Structure formats: structure tokens, C-alpha cells
């Protein structure tokens, strides 16, 4: 079943810049896709198109209503004056859920990201990684069938990023949601996703399926992971003229 799809979609911004050019892609329900490419290649634009934050110039988007979409931004994007709990429940509050429902979903989201002890903390008391967890929890609290993530862990140190990558994989397997994850990191894409879409200059240049064998153990040392990294690097290297 195709939950999300772009059909020959182009996106042009008001200043005349064409961010996406004739892009066609399908995202199956429950799949984990990474969008990989250099900065300015249109991966964030593609995500914003899927989220309905931008409208296609030509072509069409088969998407979901915005309330069914969880979006995680590059920055934590928290409201500094609200506690962790109040940040997570903000979208639910706006959507008008009952207090009981909100409390249930808050506990669930806090547990998923491992922040149960920090519900009353303010954003400024948290580390960068914890802020990102709050941001993720806020998206998960909507119980979205689709989770769109725009380089969410790019600003974090590598160890924190590895841990969040692991947690995200676990959450995905537990929640069975569709995840589309934008990153410029080849290793992160290879580690997280089932397939990667290589983007360049506003177009999808290549689709690479990532062999999932070896997921049960430490995937970072599995041959499938190394192979995926090599395949992705080659795809990107080819596109930027043989250099990485």
C-alpha cells in the first residue's frame, strides 16, 4: 500500500529557485527510507512537500492530513517557556484531545524516548541530545502513521547520535510507522534505513535497497552495513564527479 507518493512533482520557491524537479517516489506503509544527498539537493524540500508545508508547482502529492504527520525538525524547536511535558502535549492540546487522553499519550511518548524523569524540566536545563528526544517525543505523541525527520541528529555529537539512531530503530519497529529520514550522513542512512534515495540537484538520482541481514546482532560491524555504506558512497561519489 502506498501511503505517501510524489507524482512528477516540482517545487519552485517565490524567489524562482527550483528546489525539486520532476520527482516521483513512493513510500510504502511501515517502510524506513533515508533521503541522502549534499546540502541544497532538495531533501528538506521533499520532506516539506510531503508534510504539506509547501505546495508543488507542478505534479501532485498523495499525502496525509497534517494531523497524521509527525515532523521532527533539524533543531529541537521547543518552546522555551514550556516544560518538557507541556512541549510534548502542545500539538495534542491544539488538536483538542481530552486531558485523560493527553496524559496517557504523554506517558507513552516520554517512555519511548526515555525521558520519564524529566517531564517537569525546562528546555534550557536539557542537553542537546535530550532536547532532540523531547522533539521526537512531541512528534510521537500524535501517534502518527508517518514520521518525517529532517536531519534531526545532525547537530549532535557522534556517540549521542549513535544512541538516538538505535532508539529510533527500536521505536520504528515497535510503532510500525512509516519513517522518511533526511540525512547527509552515509553511515547514518545505511544504519537506519531499509532503502536510501540518493538526491542531487533537486532530483532523485538513484534508489538503493539496503540489505537487512545481520540486523539481529551489532549491525555496525555486519558486512551488509559495510556494503550499504560503500554502495551509498559510490552513488554519491559518482554524482559529485568522483570525489567524496
Amino acid at each position: 500500500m502506498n501511503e505517501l507518493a510524489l507524482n512528477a512533482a516540482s517545487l519552485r520557491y517565490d524567489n524562482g529557485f527550483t528546489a525539486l524537479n520532476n520527482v516521483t517516489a513512493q513510500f510504502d506503509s511501515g517502510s524506513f527510507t533515508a533521503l541522502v544527498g549534499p546540502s541544497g539537493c532538495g531533501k528538506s524540500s521533499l520532506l516539506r512537500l510531503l508534510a504539506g508545508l509547501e505546495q508543488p508547482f507542478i505534479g501532485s502529492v498523495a499525502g496525509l492530513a497534517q494531523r497524521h504527520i509527525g515532523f521532527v525538525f533539524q533543531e529541537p524547536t521547543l518552546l522555551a517557556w514550556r516544560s518538557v511535558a507541556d512541549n510534548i502535549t502542545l500539538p495534542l492540546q491544539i488538536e483538542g484531545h481530552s486531558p485523560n487522553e493527553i496524559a496517557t499519550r504523554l506517558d507513552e511518548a516520554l517512555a519511548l524516548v526515555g525521558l520519564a524523569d524529566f517531564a517537569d524540566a525546562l528546555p534550557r536545563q536539557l542537553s542537546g541530545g535530550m532536547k532532540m528526544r523531547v522533539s521526537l517525543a512531541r512528534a510521537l505523541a500524535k501517534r502518527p502513521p508517518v514520521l518525517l525527520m529532517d536531519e534531526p541528529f545532525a547537530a549532535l555529537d557522534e556517540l549521542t547520535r549513535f544512541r538516538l539512531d538505535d532508539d529510533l530503530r527500536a521505536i520504528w519497529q515497535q510503532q510500525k510507522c512509516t519513517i522518511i529520514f533526511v540525512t547527509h550522513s552515509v553511515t547514518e542512512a545505511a544504519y537506519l534505513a531499509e532503502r536510501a534515495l540518493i538526491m542531487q540537484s533537486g532530483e532523485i538520482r538513484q534508489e538503493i535497497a539496503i540489505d537487512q541481514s545481520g540486523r539481529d546482532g551489532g549491525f555496525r560491524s555486519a558486512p551488509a552495513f559495510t556494503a550499504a555504506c560503500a554502495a551509498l558512497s559510490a552513488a554519491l561519489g559518482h554524482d559529485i564527479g568522483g570525489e567524496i
Partner: protein
Amino acid sequence: MRYLVPLLLGLALLAFWEIWVSAANVPVFILPAPSAIGTALVDNFAALMAALWITVKVTLLAFFWAVVSAVGLAIIFTRARLIEMALYPYVITLQVTPVVAIAPLILIWVGFDNASRALVIIAWIVAFFPMLTNTVQGLRSIDPQLHDLMTLSGASWRQRLVYLELPAALPAMLTGAKISGGLALIGAVVAEFVAGSGASTGLAWRIIEAGNRLEIATMFASLALLSALGIFLFYLLSFCEWLLLHRWHESFRR
């Protein structure tokens, strides 16, 4: 130390003033000694307090309306670019035209049967602009991703205003309020100078009156009360700022 040092300096200056005035035989209608000013304050206490109360009322009313109208207009400006384009030149015109020059007009239009209303309007004109620009600035500098977040949550314009825009703009609004509060007082004094009358005798009017009668000590006493009022307003607004922001805002990070 932070309070003690300026306090000691103030006391030393007052003592020097007192001694110098009596030693050099400065006439009381040129520069009265602090003790004479104190006496004038006590002697005219009831009249000065009544005058202070009138100035306080004009200042606070002007400040209140400046905040309400500036925040309202700022919200309209950030929602409707066209209205901003149409109105902004006139707002600036109102700001740059010296209020003393408009005061007689305002007095003619609204002041004849209600002098204090004219005073409030004049003080409002003075206090309005910094509140407006700061609020517009605060509303404009909200992270666009936070707006995206509200869009994705399906927020109505009112929810966007309450949950995001007003709290996010609060620091800038409070900065504007601190400036506007001081300006409202200045505006009230200017208004009384140009439009005050026997019907509403605030502190500024007392100053003119005492000056005409060469009661310089009373003049100084009124002046001291005006300064005290200005300082009080500033610290009151600073306290509000602390109360509202210290939990979360960067400016209160120790």
C-alpha cells in the same frame, strides 16, 4: 555593595549640598538646601500627594492604552502586510512630529470639557511607538520552524497567538514596556506643561506654579517626587519582567 555604594554617594552629595548652600549663603530662590526641600515636601504634603496621584493616573492610563493599542496594532501588522504598508508611514509621522506641537490641537479637540483626557492622549502618543516597534520585532523574530510546528498541529490563528506568538514576543514586549513606561511619564509631564490647567493639577503643573511663585523648594520637592515615580515605574516593570521571564529566558541565565 551594589546598593550601599550608590546610597553612600547620594548621602555624601546631599551633605555637601547642605553644607555648601549654608556656607556660601546661596539664596533660597536659587538653590534651596536639601533640608529646605524636605520641609517644603512636608509642608505641602497633601497638595503634592494629590498632584502626584493625578500624574500617576495620567501616566498609568497612557501606558495602559499604549500597551493595548501597540500590541493590537502589532498583531494586525504581522498578520496583514498590506495594512502595515498602508499605516506605517502615518505611525512614523505621529512619532516624529514633536508632541508639543500637536498638543494644542488635541486640547482643542478633546480637552475643553475634559482636560485629563487630553493629557492622557498626549502622553499616549509619546509612549506608543517603542511599544509598537518592539512588539512587531518580537513577533517577527519567531523561528519559522515554530510556525511550521503550529501549522502541522492545525492551530487556529488564535491558538497560534496564545500558544506561540505572544509568549515568544514577550521578552521584546517587556523591553518595549520598560521604555514606554518611562516615556508615558515624560509624556504626562510634557502634557501638563502644555495643556495642564486648574482642572487637573499634576506634579508638572505644581512645578510651573511653584516656579512662578519662586517657591523653589516646592519645585524641587515636586521634581524629587517625579523622579521617584519614574524610578518606581522602572523597577516595577523590571520586576514584572523578572517574574515572567526568569524561569525560562536566556537573559536571566546566571
